[in-house]
């Protein structure tokens, strides 16, 4: 590990860092190109542009155009079939100049070694994740999100693994690792283990979700802290957004994670040599890989860096939650059947030749209307905010981003007024059977959706199941309606989002006031819509097209007349 051991290289790094310390409003493309070429890499650039569906107020961008610079270190005597990626996302708000300096120093060091068996791509992207998305789409020659970008001139085969590096401050006292990717995808656990090994080897202070690793698992504090970390991971994974540019690599089956150097104001701090050594070690290990990382788990939850909860342990929990829905549906089915028995002329013993399904007995027509209306409501929620932003800005004194969020909320709230509209449409022959049939359909619909979500993104599925299932099971037009209504509203997807935000900040030990929480909620809504359009995150369409209409059905059941 001779990285930066000689003073010449260290001075060079210091010079680079000083040069880069000026705010990086625009990526110094020509300078980066020259520097990478002088280090001995094959350098290419890629320009891209993207018009966001509406202005992004948190990152202050709308018409984005930028340039990615990447240099390829060709493995000697190999045929460029495999590669590893070290990427540093740069943006106007997150100056990552320390990381760029470290990347160049690592490139210079790696270039002098002859043991590389895989090409190494050193990628500096502009506009952080947007640049990464543009580069990845161009590398794989696909267009998922409508990004306009120039084709790549140089490629390096199939990417086996990627590491994203973010150093947010000059002083690094701990390294935080982020694994949650787009739509809750996770990298192979072995990549995390690799990082953890080098953390221990280099004596680095490594954190997960910004939490220190509990030392003592026998006392009560350790598991409690583990639980906090676990909950933070569940919330992050459920959000479905990429937490770092590594998240976008996972779609292309490239195992990736993000390392963040954090100044957490502790006593001891690390110079970049320690971080560089850990990175060098990781790359050398990945370089030796014969196959892609596949031996370890892809589905896990992390209470600590050295512990994980495997899918076999956590899946039954969701299974039992969904069983509640199934049992309730079965009960309704039997009640409907008995009610049908009671109404119809008494028949022989109910054997296997049970009459038609109750929904048909009730008449499909009574179910079609609420189903269609709630689905249409979901569709409106999905389409209208972005489509109607210009109309809204013309008629109201709001900006586009505000218009989108407010339209979103307005349509969401308008959905609650639905029962008063639908009950006129429905034939009122058998009111009791009507709501039972509707609830039966809604329960099965909810169970199916939650089952599918839990399989792909466990955290999201679990979070939604724990909130939605009790209210959904309890909802009926008799009894204390106001209590049920309050419960239903509190467990609606939007309320879950709001609650999750408060919980998240609480767990991070930065509690929110109500006003701040509301602001954060509005920002999260806008971000959710934007991420769907820019990266293809699925949370927004899932909630608006799937769970919101389903939830409306229960609302409908509650106010059945």
């Amino acid at each position, binding site marked *: 590990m001779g990285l930066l051991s000689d003073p010449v290289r260290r001075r060079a790094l210091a010079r680079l860092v000083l040069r880069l310390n000026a705010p990086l409003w625009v990526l110094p493309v020509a300078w980066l190109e020259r520097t990478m*070429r002088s280090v001995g890499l094959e350098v290419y650039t890629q320009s891209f542009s993207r018009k966001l569906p509406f202005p992004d107020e948190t990152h202050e961008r709308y018409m984005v155009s930028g340039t990615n610079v990447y240099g390829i270190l060709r493995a*000697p005597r190999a*045929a460029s*079939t495999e590669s590893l990626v070290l990427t540093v996302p740069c943006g106007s708000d997150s100056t990552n100049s320390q990381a760029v300096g470290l990347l160049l120093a690592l490139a210079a060091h790696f270039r002098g070694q002859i043991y590389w068996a895989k090409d190494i791509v050193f990628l500096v992207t502009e506009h952080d994740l947007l640049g990464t998305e543009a580069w990845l789409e161009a590398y794989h020659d696909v267009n998922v999100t409508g990004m306009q970008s120039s084709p790549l001139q140089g490629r390096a085969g*199939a990417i086996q693994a990627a590491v994203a590096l973010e150093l947010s401050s000059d002083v690094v006292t701990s390294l935080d690792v982020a694994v949650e990717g787009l739509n809750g995808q996770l990298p192979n656990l072995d990549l995390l283990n690799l990082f953890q090994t080098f953390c221990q080897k280099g004596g680095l202070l490594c954190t997960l979700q910004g939490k220190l690793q509990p030392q003592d698992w026998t006392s009560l504090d350790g598991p409690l802290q583990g639980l906090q970390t676990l909950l933070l991971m569940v919330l992050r994974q459920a959000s479905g957004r990429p937490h770092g540019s590594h998240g976008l690599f996972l779609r292309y089956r490239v195992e990736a994670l993000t390392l963040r150097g954090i100044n957490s104001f502790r006593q001891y701090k690390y110079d970049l040599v320690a971080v560089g050594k850990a990175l060098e070690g990781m790359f050398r290990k990945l370089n030796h890989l014969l196959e*892609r990382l596949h031996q370890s788990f892809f589905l896990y939850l992390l209470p600590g860096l050295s512990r994980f909860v495997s899918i076999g342990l956590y899946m039954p929990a969701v299974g039992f939650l969904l069983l509640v829905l199934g049992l309730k549906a079965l009960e309704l089915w039997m009640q409907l059947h008995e009610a049908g028995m009671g109404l119809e002329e008494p028949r022989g013993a109910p054997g296997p030749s049970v009459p038609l399904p109750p929904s048909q007995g009730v008449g499909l027509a009574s179910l079609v209307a609420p189903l269609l209306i709630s689905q249409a409501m979901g569709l409106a929620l999905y389409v209208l905010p972005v489509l109607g932003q210009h109309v809204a800005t013309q008629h109201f004194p709001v900006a586009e981003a505000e218009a989108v969020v407010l339209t979103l909320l307005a349509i969401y709230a308008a959905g609650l007024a639905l029962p008063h509209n639908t009950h006129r449409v429905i034939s009122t022959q058998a009111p009791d059977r009507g709501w039972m049939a509707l609830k039966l359909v809604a329960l099965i619909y909810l169970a199916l959706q939650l089952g599918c979500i839990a399989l792909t993104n466990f955290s999201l599925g679990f979070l939604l199941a724990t909130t939605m299932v009790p209210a959904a099971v309890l909802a009926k037009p008799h009894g204390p309606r106001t209590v049920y209504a309050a419960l239903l509203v509190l467990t609606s997807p939007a309320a879950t989002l709001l609650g999750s935000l408060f919980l998240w900040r609480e767990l991070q030990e930065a509690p929110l006031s109500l006003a701040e929480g509301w602001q954060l909620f509005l920002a999260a809504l806008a971000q959710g819509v934007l991420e769907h359009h820019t990266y293809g995150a699925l949370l927004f369409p899932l909630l608006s097209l799937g769970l919101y209409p389903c939830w409306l059905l229960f609302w409908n059941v509650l106010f059945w007349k």
Partner: protein
Amino acid sequence: MAAAMPLALLVLLLLGPGGWCLAEPPRDSLREELVITPLPSGDVAATFQFRTRWDSELQRKGDTDHYFLRYAVLPREVVCTENLTPWKKLLPCSSKAGLSVLLKADRLFHTSYHSQAVHIRPVCRNARCTSISWELRQTLSVVFDAFITGQGKKDWSLFRMFSRTLTEPCPLASESRVYVDITTYNQDNETLEVHPPPTTTYQDVILGARKTYAIYDLLDTAMINNSRNLNIQLKWKRPPENEAPPVPFLHAQRYVSGYGLQKGELSTLLYNTHPYRAFPVLLLDTVPWYLRLYVHTLTITSKGKENKPSYIHYQPAQDRLQPHLLEMLIQLPANSVTKVSIQFERALLKWTEYTPDPNHGFYVSPSVLSALVPSMVAAKPVDWEESPLFNSLFPVSDGSNYFVRLYTEPLLVNLPTPDFSMPYNVICLTCTVVAVCYGSFYNLLTRTFHIEEPRTGGLAKRLANLIRRARGVPPL
């Protein structure tokens, strides 16, 4: 950049000597050559060539029979020391004398590029081609990396490259020469100098550009006797700037696009950087059968327009028997990028057909590009026997263009792979065991057994039974 990569390539060619049929009767002799080319990036390329010919009694009859023409590639094999040792043993002087002294494995594999080849072909001994001799030509090319070996310095010597110097020619050799490319890149003055000063120089058009070579003849006794060894040194008068290297007229790039394990697309980008001349390229693609090509998706576009190939030969794959073969003649417009893409579906293999490392991916062999690239400088046709061996690496047919064969990079494609882990194997094993046990037990348990009486006294018994039935007594 898709130069030819080190790759064990097995081409069995029974083609005739073609246009350059010889008049001079070939001898059983060795010609050896080392060409050193300093590249503008500071790296140095060294190419060894050894040629031996011997007479044979084998008679050639008729033309090449295409039935015997085979083409095969092992894309996952990378050349290593194992390949160098037997290769060296084919040389008449092994690595004892002559240029082959320089072939030291630890230096040759400390380079950024390595490629070695063995060519064998029949050569006509007379104009009517009634008798032939065989030619064995061995080539080895390496590119020494200025960054790795030079520590930033860009001056070179034989000793620094190979940690050996030349001491004596191979006694069997009829010709043993070292050529050093001293072409001036800038017009104003010389950029590099060689030491010792060469006795003669040689000028020719190589790859469409005029080149000057300094010649060191090992058979010239004065050359070595002066200092008992020859250590050629290269010094840059003005070190070259770190600029992008000049782009060749024809280069290509190949990649797999798309994501997921169901479908994908093979794309080949062909670059023609010639400012005003278009030229045709013959593209040969062999794709393994487990990538099921959709031929109707074959698209060739250059400059945003569809480019119709003038010739297409396609031989579909047969599962487990033969790969897809796709051959096309494509005209590349001047200064353009042509994209050839074809979609495929990844097949699911039988579980025994996966390699021991299925998650590594499966290799797709490189496509082969053969082209007559127009040259900037008109070359005059030369006598092949008289000119240096390296001239025939890029044969010139009519002076205005030269022949180039390029191999693109091989590809690594992931196929849908079952989880070959311990649980998977346990499940497979237990399922087999249970199926076998269950089957036989079920068979045993559900079968009803009847004890069949041996038939004795067929006719008498039947008669007796008839009588007994008539009497109303149960039969025997």
